[in-house]
């Protein structure tokens, strides 16, 4: 049967896998992307109803790999972010001008991101996309890994980049342990059309039964991400649209005027997944496969893009020196570069969620005090903001606005 080779084999053509292929392909690296679903299906409207808040660093990266151009038209700038706890007078405002007057980030529909990445990747001559790919076996030798697909085709690469999302079958097949912590929460996601403009304001409000976020989209529209304890979520799911909208309005007030649902409501059960390690012989885990975090701070894909940017830089730098892109030194560079950053975000998002999802009265004091402290200390707040914007830590050069 047919046998081909590439420098890097990307397993999973989701947002993470496609952006890795776009980054590597833009530097001329030979890449094969294997996606289990059909592209047309993935690009069609009903597949993913979410939006993603893209922070500044990741936006610079997307621009550097030539993918931003195609999604810029669909991106709505976030000018201000207000975070506060329901029923408490304390609030933290992240205003754009505190950094330098530029948007804090952008909201883009996942559908638009996927399409833009797909278009970018199909224009790159060294990237090969294969959909409906079913991995039957993976063999690893000293210098390469070989993937056998259903149909018999064999692909050999110096490195396998696993971008299969948090429930990755390949991670399991290779015996890389991952710990799972179910949040017993479900995220409800939907789009609202509203009467008044949102003025680029994103709102994050914490309720005892879970966080609620309102994200500005293009036009008079906003996206809702509402995490609820599972049973509550099921009850809310059963509500008629009108009753659902009433619940929603109760949670964020009436500053947007009349509201209506646009499109269906989506549901995502939430689980924290952390792989024990990000690398294995001839293998790297990238994005949600390495760690899938709580969507509370809108950081999941931003973190994934930091993986992608760090990995792409590591591999391209090695290939430009003629070095093997998948040897243990390359893996060690990636692992040590990414581990600390991930741990910080897992701890922060998990910590915030636990703090706010608890009903004990004294925690209320702690969290009000915590938010107050953040608000009262401008340098600390700027630090949080810079991290949320993805501009902190030892940044890959593409996240500082430089070419790969």
């Amino acid at each position: 049967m047919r046998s081909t080779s590439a420098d890097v084999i990307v397993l999973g053509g989701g947002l993470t896998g496609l952006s890795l292929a776009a980054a590597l392909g833009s530097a001329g690296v030979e890449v094969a992307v294997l996606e289990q679903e059909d592209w047309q299906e993935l690009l069609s409207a009903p597949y993913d109803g979410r939006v993603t808040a893209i922070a500044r660093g990741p936006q610079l990266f997307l621009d550097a790999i030539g993918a931003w151009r195609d999604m810029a038209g669909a991106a709505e700038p976030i000018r201000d972010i207000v975070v506060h706890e329901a029923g408490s007078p304390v609030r933290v405002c992240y205003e754009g001008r505190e950094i330098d007057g530029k948007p804090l980030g952008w909201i883009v529909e996942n559908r638009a991101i996927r399409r833009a990445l797909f278009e970018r990747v199909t224009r790159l001559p060294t990237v090969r996309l294969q959909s409906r790919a079913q991995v039957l076996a993976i063999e690893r030798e000293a210098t390469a890994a070989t993937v056998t697909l259903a149909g018999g085709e064999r692909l050999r690469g110096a490195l396998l980049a696993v971008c299969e999302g948090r429930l990755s079958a390949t991670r399991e097949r290779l015996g890389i342990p991952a710990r799972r912590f179910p949040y017993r929460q479900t995220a409800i996601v939907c789009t609202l059309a509203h009467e008044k403009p949102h003025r680029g304001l994103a709102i994050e409000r914490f309720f005892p039964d879970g966080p609620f976020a309102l994200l500005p989209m293009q036009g008079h529209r906003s996206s809702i991400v509402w995490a609820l304890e599972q049973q509550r979520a099921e009850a809310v799911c059963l509500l008629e649209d009108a009753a659902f909208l009433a619940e929603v309005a109760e949670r964020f007030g009436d500053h947007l005027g009349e509201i209506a649902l646009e499109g269906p409501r989506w549901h995502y059960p939430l689980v924290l997944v952390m792989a024990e390690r990000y690398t294995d012989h001839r293998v790297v885990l990238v994005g949600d496969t390495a760690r899938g975090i709580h969507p509370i701070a809108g950081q999941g894909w931003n973190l994934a893009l930091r993986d992608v940017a760090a990995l792409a830089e590591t591999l391209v730098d090695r290939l430009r020196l003629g070095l093997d892109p998948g040897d243990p030194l390359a893996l060690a560079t990636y692992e040590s570069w990414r581990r600390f950053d991930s741990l910080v975000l897992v701890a922060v998002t998990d910590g915030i969620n636990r703090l706010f999802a608890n009903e004990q009265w004294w925690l209320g004091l702690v969290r009000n005090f915590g938010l107050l402290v953040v608000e009262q200390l401008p340098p600390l707040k700027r630090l949080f903001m810079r991290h949320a914007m993805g501009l902190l830590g030892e940044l890959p050069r593409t996240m500082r606005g430089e070419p790969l």
Partner: protein
Amino acid sequence: MTADREEIARFEALAEEWWDPMGPMRPLHALNPVRLAWIRALACRHFGRDERQLRPLGGLAALDVGCGGGLLAEPLARLGALVVAIDPAAASIEVARRHAAEVGLAIDYRVATAADLADRGETFDLVCALEVIEHVDEPEALVADLARLTRRGGLLLLSTLNRTLASLLGGILAAEWLLGWLPPGTHDWRRFLRPSELARMLRTHGLQPVALTGVGWDAAHDRFVLVRQPSINYMLAAVRS
């Protein structure tokens, strides 16, 4: 014949372990990125190539003298060069051949010395002899052979250890005895050449030194870096006019 039999035997013992970056050749693997970056930069400047390309040395005829298991030859081939790589140690060449076949690189490996090739009149655009000269009995004879192997307008790249107190302490005592990076007895300090001595030999044989850099250990980041002082390990580039 400038290759010393005892030296050859010593490397043969290590041959099977060439390619484990965490194994006994760890220091060479650790040195490789900084060396390759320097070689690439000089070669691209000299031959007018673009450093950001994945195959910037495309089409250049390159020779790696004392190639060992192929740690330099393979990267040069990946960068596009047509590589001939020689070593008098047959076991190393065997390791190198097998490895290149495994990763799918076409490299012409031969059990030979620089003198063998020079006598046959072979010439190259780019000649590399890294960590070789300190292991031969007659360094000047090697330089003469390397000069014959370098085409007019071609580039010769050498790296070796300086004969300073620092290299005695840092290069031999630390690397061979304290840190256990290299087997004890790998180097003989008295054979080391100072950059000025090496430069003089190069000029005598029609090669013009064009660049000199030291290589140092950056303990904070756990990696080798280029440094101004060539006090321990240094690299020298020369052009055949």
